Structures are given as structure tokens and as C-alpha cells.
């Protein structure tokens, strides 16, 4: 028996030493080109234009001794782009330009240009859900410009445009817009996808320095893009953005300004919204569909430009009622646009019906949901509280008598 055991031992040693003959899959860290972001555009001749933002590690962290001296010059990122018929095709073309192996595990952001997105994106994003190195946590972002332009920003302050975009999405939207979420929304019944939209804009909004915009652009969050299936329909921005922010139940940057009517002295009060939640509850009564939306928002007053006396609880409840009105003004047109103009159920009313009435959904609602959604009555309810007024009760600059209760 001992002989056999020894034999197995030797077999083990031999098979292990077999491993020495080659390291098939090993690549040194300095042999990989770490891709941090990808931009997808439609080129003029109808092909796909893909740009890869590859980081240059030595320029990012320059504190390492040894490579310190040389790294003071040069860009932190390298931008490579190529045209082709599909992602893998372009991948190979870009690889041919690089001495290092393209590495996609640290891909953080995929930016899609408007033109391409309008034709549908699920085909082009398939590579990123299928390929070994990429993962579903990558964020998807839309831009009205050419997607590559988002990478050509000022990198003095933020060295990686990809990180900049990713952080801003979370800061403004409060949630991530990952590939997983995007595909879930596309494929799931009764819900459509919405994706944050970014544009380049000037750091300083002073109109005097005209060339500022070209030299030092920044990536700015502008709104959200609305999808139907995998095709871009349009954007919710500017005016509707407030509604988007409020409705989405976000966010860290949520803030709302409430104008005070003239008879109460005019001016405005501004609140920060640290917490809010949106709850959709569908109802079917006598074959009539209806949806109740309850939005619970907590506000904290941080600015008071009116003459209201914030030490009075009656005043606070008055502001709360104004708060509701303002919310209504923001959200009503938003829902109207979504329902009527886009007719794209980005907030998942359909999915809510599916969860609550699965049989009914499968039997009839599913087939003509678009039409139903267009005319779905939505009741908005607000649970509004103002919990803090900052460090002050009465504003300092106003005399006691001038205060309005």
C-alpha cells in the first residue's frame, strides 16, 4: 500500500510541476491597459464609433517614489477610438493600437450618444453583459452631445472623467444606473428604463470668458433620458428635472425652493430634502384602473428669504402646505409628460399592477398597457414634514415687528 501512496505522491508532484511549464492566463499589472470608461457613438458613415478611456496609472498616483520624477508631465488618461460594425470588432481594432492588453474589469461608465441611443442599445450593450471581464455594475449614461466629448473635460481637479460621472450620478440621483438595472427595466413587464443624462458645460457661468467653455469644460448632470424598450425617446430636463428628483425618491442633493405669496410678504424659503420615499399603490375598482402615489418627504429649512417667523408652528404648517403645492407643481407636469408625451412607464406603474393583480395583468392588462398607461388616473398624495429650521428661528436681519405670522 505504501508503494501506491508514494506513486500518487509522485503523480501529484509531477502534475504540479506540469503547471510550471506555462502560465497561460497570467498578465502582469503593468501589462494591462485599464479601461475606465467607454463611449459609444454613431459615426457619420453609419458605423459605430467606440472610444475607450484608458488610465495611465503613473500619472494618477504620482506619490510613488522612483517613478515620481518622470510622471509630472502627461495626461492621466489616454483616449483611443475606432469605427467598426460591432463592439468586439472595434475592441480588436483598438487592441491593435495598444502595446498592453485591454482590461475591462474596471470599466465604470458606458456613455452612449443620443444618435445611437435612438436606434436602440440592447444589441450594442450585449457585449458588456456577456464578456468575461466586464460586469453588470457598470453605469450607463446618455449624453446629448457626442459621447466622446464627456471625456474631454478639464482633468486638473478630477483626474478621471469616469469617476466624475459616476460620483455625480449617485450624488444627484441617489441611486446607481447600472447595466443590470437598465436591462432589468428593459426586459421586465410594465416598467421602462430611465438613464441619467450628462452634458459638458463651463465651470464658470460667467459669459464674459467665452473660451472658458472650450478649455475648461466640466461634466454636468442635466436630467434623465427616457427609454421605451431599448430605444431613447427623449429627455426630461430643466423644468421637469425638479419633478424627476422629487419623484425618484432621492436624494442627497435634493433641494426645493418654495415661493411665498405676495400677501405674506413675498420672498422664498428653501429646503433640503434628506429623505423621501415614493410608494405606488395600484387599485382596480369596477374594472377601472387607478394608481395612488404617496410621496413622503422630510424637509429641512436652510434658507429663509421671506419675512415669515419660523419660531411659530403655525407658520411651519403653512409652509408645509405651500411645500405640497410646490411639489404638485413640479410633479404634475412631469407625470403628464411621461404619460402623454413619451407614453413610457419609467416609474413602473405597470409592474406595480403586475405585482398586485398578477392574473388580471397576465390576462388582459399586459397586452395593451401602453394605451392604459396613457390614460391612467394618478392620484398624488403627499406626506410632508418640516423637521428642522436650521440654527435660527427668527431671521436676524428683520425687526421683530416686521415679522409675519
Amino acid at each position, binding site marked *: 500500500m505504501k508503494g501506491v501512496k508514494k506513486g500518487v505522491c509522485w*503523480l501529484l508532484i509531477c502534475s504540479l510541476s*506540469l503547471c510550471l511549464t506555462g502560465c*497561460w492566463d497570467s498578465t502582469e499589472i503593468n501589462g494591462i491597459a485599464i479601461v475606465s470608461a467607454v463611449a459609444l457613438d454613431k459615426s457619420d458613415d453609419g458605423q459605430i464609433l467606440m472610444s475607450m478611456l484608458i488610465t495611465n496609472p503613473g500619472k494618477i498616483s504620482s506619490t510613488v517614489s522612483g517613478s515620481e520624477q518622470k510622471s509630472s508631465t502627461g495626461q492621466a488618461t489616454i483616449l483611443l477610438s475606432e469605427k467598426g460594425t460591432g463592439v468586439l470588432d472595434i475592441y480588436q481594432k483598438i487592441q491593435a493600437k495598444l502595446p498592453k492588453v485591454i482590461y475591462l474589469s474596471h470599466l465604470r461608465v458606458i456613455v452612449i450618444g443620443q444618435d445611437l441611443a435612438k436606434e436602440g442599445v440592447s444589441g450594442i450593450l450585449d457585449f458588456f453583459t456577456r464578456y468575461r471581464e466586464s460586469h*453588470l455594475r457598470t453605469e450607463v449614461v446618455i449624453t446629448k452631445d457626442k459621447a466622446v466629448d464627456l471625456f474631454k473635460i478639464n482633468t486638473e481637479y478630477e483626474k478621471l472623467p469616469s469617476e466624475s460621472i459616476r460620483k455625480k450620478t449617485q450624488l444627484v440621483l441617489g441611486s446607481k444606473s447600472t447595466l443590470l438595472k437598465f*436591462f432589468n427595466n428593459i426586459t421586465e413587464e410594465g416598467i421602462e428604463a430611465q438613464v441619467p443624462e450628462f452634458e459638458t458645460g463651463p465651470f464658470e457661468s460667467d459669459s464674459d470668458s467665452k473660451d472658458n467653455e472650450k478649455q475648461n469644460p466640466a461634466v454636468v448632470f442635466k436630467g434623465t433620458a427616457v427609454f421605451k424598450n431599448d430605444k431613447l425617446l427623449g429627455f426630461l430636463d430643466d423644468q421637469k428635472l425638479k419633478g424627476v428628483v422629487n419623484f425618484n425618491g432621492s436624494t442627497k442633493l435634493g433641494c426645493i425652493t418654495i415661493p411665498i405669496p405676495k400677501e405674506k410678504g413675498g420672498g422664498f424659503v428653501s429646503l433640503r430634502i434628506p429623505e423621501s420615499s415614493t410608494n405606488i399603490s395600484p387599485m382596480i375598482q369596477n374594472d377601472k384602473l387607478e394608481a395612488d402615489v404617496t410621496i413622503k418627504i422630510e424637509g429641512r429649512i436652510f434658507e429663509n428669504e421671506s419675512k415669515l417667523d419660523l419660531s411659530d408652528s403655525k407658520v411651519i404648517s403653512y409652509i408645509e402646505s405651500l411645500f405640497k403645492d410646490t411639489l404638485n407643481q413640479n410633479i404634475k407636469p412631469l407625470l403628464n409628460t411621461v404619460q402623454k408625451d413619451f407614453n413610457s412607464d419609467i416609474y413602473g406603474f405597470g409592474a406595480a399592477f403586475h405585482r398586485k393583480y*398578477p392574473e388580471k395583468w397576465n390576462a388582459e392588462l399586459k397586452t395593451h398597457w401602453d394605451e392604459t398607461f396613457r390614460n391612467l388616473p394618478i392620484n398624488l398624495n403627499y406626506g410632508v414634514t418640516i423637521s428642522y429650521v436650521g440654527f435660527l428661528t427668527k431671521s436676524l436681519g428683520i425687526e421683530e415687528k416686521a415679522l409675519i405670522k
Partner: protein
Amino acid sequence: MERISSYQLFSMTVLFQVGTTIIFGFSSSAGRDAWISCLISTGIGVLTVSLYLFLMKSQPGLTLVEWFPAQFGRWIGTPIAWMYPLLFIYDAGRAMGDIKDLISVTILPLTPHFVIMIALLAVIAYALYGGIENLARIGGIWMPIMLFLYLIVVVLIAVSGIIDFRNIQPFVDKGWGNVMKAVWPLGITQTFGESIEFAMIWPLVKEEKKIVKYTLVATMTSGLLICSIDIFAILVLSEKYFSNSLYPIYTLVQQIEVSDFIENLDSISVILFLTTAFFKTGLHIFSAVYGMQKLLKTKSYKTFILPVTAAVAFLALTMARSVLEHFEAGLKILPYNLWVPLFYILPALLFIVVAIKRLKQVKQKNAHS
């Protein structure tokens, strides 16, 4: 005589049953109701294992391959008994094939398959040369480690904020037919039916009285473990991805992201799958060689280890031309043609024979007294 303790039996049973099924997401064809199919499968699985346990109790000290000759007589029983070691070899080849594909797709795309196979099988053979005791002890060590890692994964998923409870509703959306399709035959054969293999090991357990209790608790534990993993996968990935992905649990672990620091843990999950597959294959090969020893009545099973391991490696490398072919065989051909007859029909026949004999004995006794 080698002996294993009840705790070791418990941990080996759990590791075996969790085995390779976990990689593919248990009954992922049922979509977001996979966890319901899983619970039903576990229920039926416990009954199935109880049947095996009853057969074991009624023939004390005999292993699986000795049951048939003992009840059906030598000429009918022996050929039937021979089918089991052969099936176990084939199953071991399948498990290795699963692992080979998984590793190639995920962590080592360029490494030749035979290197992966030889490395893994050499370790398994090395373990088996030390005897089943060795395998059992390692199982005893790995069990708490696995549970600990599982808990860590659960905590990390929760902390990552990627769970969406809306993903799991509505329940039984596509009807019970869809749920049951995943239960029969795949759900109950691949994990719980295969547990008939432990009939080779039960006679080696030290405390005979505890076998039933430990095996049933282990079966329930592994069932619940698989279910909970299914539930997490559905909550995070949602139905579409869960049922379309080849390796949903791998993707599930990949979604973990805690404060930009803990991310891409997918390679770790591969290592976890490797350990469970290690035990599954190890037990398959052990049952096969031990069964062959019992059938051929030779002195030691260790002489069979090398040839059987080589056969397993050969099977794993040549069984299927592509991942899809491999999957298709596992989902459509195997369950009906091999697993159902060997895991259900034959034991059921055996049960009937044993029951009739019992009744006769009782009658005779009554007649005498």
C-alpha cells in the same frame, strides 16, 4: 476499518448536496419562483432520502451495491448493482465537466482543460488514497468555513444595497405548471436523488443510531441553503437575468460592491463552488471504487482509484463538445434516462420487495405464536 463520525456525515452530506447544483442556480428555469420549486424539491427530497434511509435500516451493515443481490438474488441483483458504480463514475465526470467549463469561462480562459482536470483530480485521488476518513475530516473542516463565507456573502449583499424586494413578486406568476416543471425531474434528482450515494457510506458511520437524524437534518439544511441562495439571486438579479444566465450565483456575487473597495468578488465564489464540487466528485469516485470493491470482493478499493480517476478525467474532457451540449445532456437526457430509474424506480422496487418480505415475516411470527 475506516470510520467516520456523525458530524462528518452531516457536513459531507451538506457539501455533497450543495455540490455543483448551486453553481447553475437551483431550478433557475422556474424564473422568479425558483425558490418555491426549490422548497418543494427539498420536501420531496427529504422523503426520498427517508426512503433510502429505510432501505438502509432494513438491511443493516450492507452498502447500496449489496442491497440488490441481497434482496433480488445474485443473478438479478448483481447486474443491477453494477449500474450504480458506473453511474457514479459518469456523474463524477459530469461534475468535473461542470467545473472545467466554469473555470474556463470565469477565471482561467486560456489554461488548457486537461491541466485544470489533472490538477483537481490528482488532489482528489490523493485525498482518497488516504481513505474516506481523510475526505470526511476535510469535510468537517470545510463545513464551518463554508457557512462562515456564506454569511459574509449575505451580509455583503445586504450592505451593497442591491436587494430589490419587488423582484420576487408576484409569486407563481406563470402558474404552478412552470414551478413543477423545475421540480420534476431535475429538481429532485440532481441533488436529493443523488444522495442515494450515501448508502455506500452509511455502514461506515460510527454511531449507527444517529445516521437517520443527521442525514435528514443535513438534507433540510442544504435544501434551505440552496433556497436562500436562489432567493438572494432573484432579489438582486431579477427574473430575466437569473433564468438566462449560465452562472447566476457567480453573477450574484459579482454584484457586491461595498464603498468602492470590496467588489468583483466573483473569483472567490468560484473557489467556493470548487470546494463543494471537490467533495461531490470525491464522494462520487469513492462510492464508485468502494462499490466496485464490494462487488468484486477484492481486498482494497485503493487499487481502483487510479483507473477510475483517469476514466473520470477522460469523461469530463470528452463528454461534450461545448458548454451548451453539456448543459443539454444534463437538463434533458440524463434525468429521464439515468437518474429517474436508478434513483427512484429501482429503490422503489426494492422497497416493495423488502416490505413484502417484512409482512411475510410478521405473518409467520403471528402464525407461530
